[in-house]
């Protein structure tokens, strides 16, 4: 479904991602892990259209996204849950959700999508008319994921969903992500919480200093010594 071929992404003079090859099959949950500043956010932003790709291609169901206008990505079925949520803080939760379904295809199904996300995260119901910025971290994360779901995506991109959240909330979050994937939506997940990410994923890639260092089945990576070394520096 999603195929990233030898892409290179630059930040001004610096190259952030070198020659990345990655793929996500329909229905899969793929995670990308790696130390901080490895380029994980850059990668996900490139897939979402927020970063320009200087070399290579991003093929989504045959469509070359790297040659497409950024605002069209959503209508092709790509939805992003960005790092630190990035909700429209001055707008209400409901307005945020409505904006999630801004594109034509999603707008037609807006009321159904709304029902669906409220079933998934019932805690949002009482907060529908509250300003999004006034919610707690965990609540904001629910809204951010719901906003993306409102776009009726074919693939859901998540950038470090556990960031800044209390451990118990993180567990619920990951359960929800697993549920979403089970309902048929492919997921590309970037995460610093290695255990949780590898636990729910089918396959994983390890990104280090802008390059893919390892790839394979998530189960195999869970106990790998090289992961421990990369993250904790202990050998």
């Amino acid at each position: 479904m999603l195929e990233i071929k030898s892409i290179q992404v630059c930040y001004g003079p610096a190259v952030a991602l070198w020659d990345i090859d990655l793929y996500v099959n329909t229905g899969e949950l793929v995670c990308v892990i790696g130390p901080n500043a490895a380029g994980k956010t850059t990668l996900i932003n490139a897939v979402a259209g927020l970063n320009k790709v200087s070399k290579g291609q991003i093929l989504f169901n045959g469509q070359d996204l790297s040659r497409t206008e950024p605002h069209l990505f959503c209508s092709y079925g790509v939805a992003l849950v960005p790092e630190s949520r990035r909700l429209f803080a001055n707008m209400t939760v409901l307005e945020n959700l409505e904006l999630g379904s801004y594109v034509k295809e999603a707008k037609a199904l807006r009321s159904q999508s709304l029902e669906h996300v409220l079933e998934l995260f019932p805690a949002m119901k009482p907060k529908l008319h509250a300003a999004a910025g006034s919610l707690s971290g965990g609540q904001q994360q629910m809204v951010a994921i719901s906003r993306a779901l409102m776009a009726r995506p074919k693939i859901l991109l998540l950038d470090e969903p556990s960031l800044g959240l209390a451990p118990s909330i993180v567990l619920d979050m990951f359960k929800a992500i697993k549920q979403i994937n089970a309902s048929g939506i492919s997921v590309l997940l970037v995460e610093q919480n290695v255990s949780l990410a590898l636990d729910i994923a089918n396959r994983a890639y390890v990104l280090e200093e802008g390059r893919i260092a390892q790839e394979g089945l998530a189960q195999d990576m869970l106990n790998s010594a090289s992961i421990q070394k990369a993250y904790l520096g202990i050998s």
Partner: protein
Amino acid sequence: MPSLHLIIQSAVSGLLLGGLYGLIGLGLGLSWGLLGQINLAHFGFLFLSAYLSYQFSTTFAINPLWALCILPPAFFAIGAGLHALIRRFKMTPFNSLLLTFGLTVIVDALIQWIWTADFRKLEYAQSNLKLELSGIYLPYAESLSFALSVLCASAVYWVMKRTDMGKAVRAIAQDPQMSTAFGINQKFITMCLAGTCTALAAIAGICVSLIFTLNPSQLYTWIGVVFAVVMLGGLGSAFGPLLAGMLIGVSESITMVFIAPSWAPIVSFTLLIGLLLLRPDKI
């Protein structure tokens, strides 16, 4: 000590005039708050519209309100087009302020060239019409301006709150990248917004031509009051400028009654400086 009747009449007149301030400030505030542009050309367009409205009614000898059908759409196109053009050049917000300043100077010179520095007063049938409510007079032009101001503010509020496009505008102002990620076409929407702000200037200009005697040098005298209205009312707000305008209008007229007319200009700035002293984080 002025009579109660005089005070109330002044207050009402000030309130109505404040509506006009609010109408002028509406477009400017939307542009500043949502586009991040301080568009000084707003004043140039305001006066251009006023003069065109004058010319239109005088030449064709018809009711000036017909200008409402022609000028706002035309100015919408001008504003949108200008925005698209300027957008091609990447410049700092301050440089765009200077650029729009340059535009205003050109428009000002253009107005002076076509209509000369002579005073121009639009003569129309209803100019002496007044509504009377228990001894208080509500002049036609001022009341109409007030009504238009309320109408425009309400329309803007409704669009911002209820339509997808309005929400998209607010989203772009908050986080342009995320808006794009959810399919909002930033270029198109901001262009429409810019056009709307200019159209609002056009409507305000028609009102100005109904109320005031026109003279090119007056262009700059409005800048101060309108900016005070925008800053007090809040950038990007629909009803804020209207309320701030009414407050300033009433304060000005009360000042005129109790102190002297020529002190009126100082009122808005005193209020503004007061705001800055007491609540600097509000800006």
